[in-house]
């Protein structure tokens, strides 16, 4: 999993039916110091409480869909937690 910051939302009215009801957020992936690093991804909200500006962690690949109520959906990144604190030694 990687750290990310939610920088926006995506709305798509026309979409494959399996994606109905899933909230999509634009997430800038971050390095461990919470600085932008790498790509921005569209991630499904796997915790149903995520809003713009929040620090989150994101799971990728097949496991992302398993954060959804129906685990057989075409989702490749999902937010699976909101970060309260990162403490580095």
């Amino acid at each position, binding site marked *: 999993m990687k750290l990310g910051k939610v920088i926006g939302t995506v709305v798509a009215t026309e979409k494959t039916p399996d994606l109905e009801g899933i909230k999509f957020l634009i997430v800038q992936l971050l390095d461990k110091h919470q600085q932008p690093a790498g790509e921005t991804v569209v991630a499904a909200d796997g*915790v149903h409480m995520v809003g713009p500006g929040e620090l989150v962690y994101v*799971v*990728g690949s097949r*496991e992302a869909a*398993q*954060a959804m109520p129906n685990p057989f959906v075409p989702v490749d990144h999902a937010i*699976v937690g909101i*970060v*309260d604190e990162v*403490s580095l030694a």
Partner: protein
Amino acid sequence: MKIGRVAGTVVSTISAPIFDGRKLLLCDLTTPDGDPTGDYIIAADTIDAGVGDPVLILDEGSSARQIVGETVAPIRALVVGIIDEVDLG
């Protein structure tokens, strides 16, 4: 699996249920010699690893789910061992 070193912890109250009660470790990925590659991964702890420990990191979903005893869960990266020694011959 990957080799890394525990660099810190991530605290999260709101998360997918599979992460409830699990310690999340932010691990620097390293070469076999222990040099940081510059990349990192957030992985759930399974062996009570601590900051500074060199660790073995699993990053594959079905193996991870087998270890945590779930058939469907958005979990992929686990710290599965504390490395005593790497011998490169």
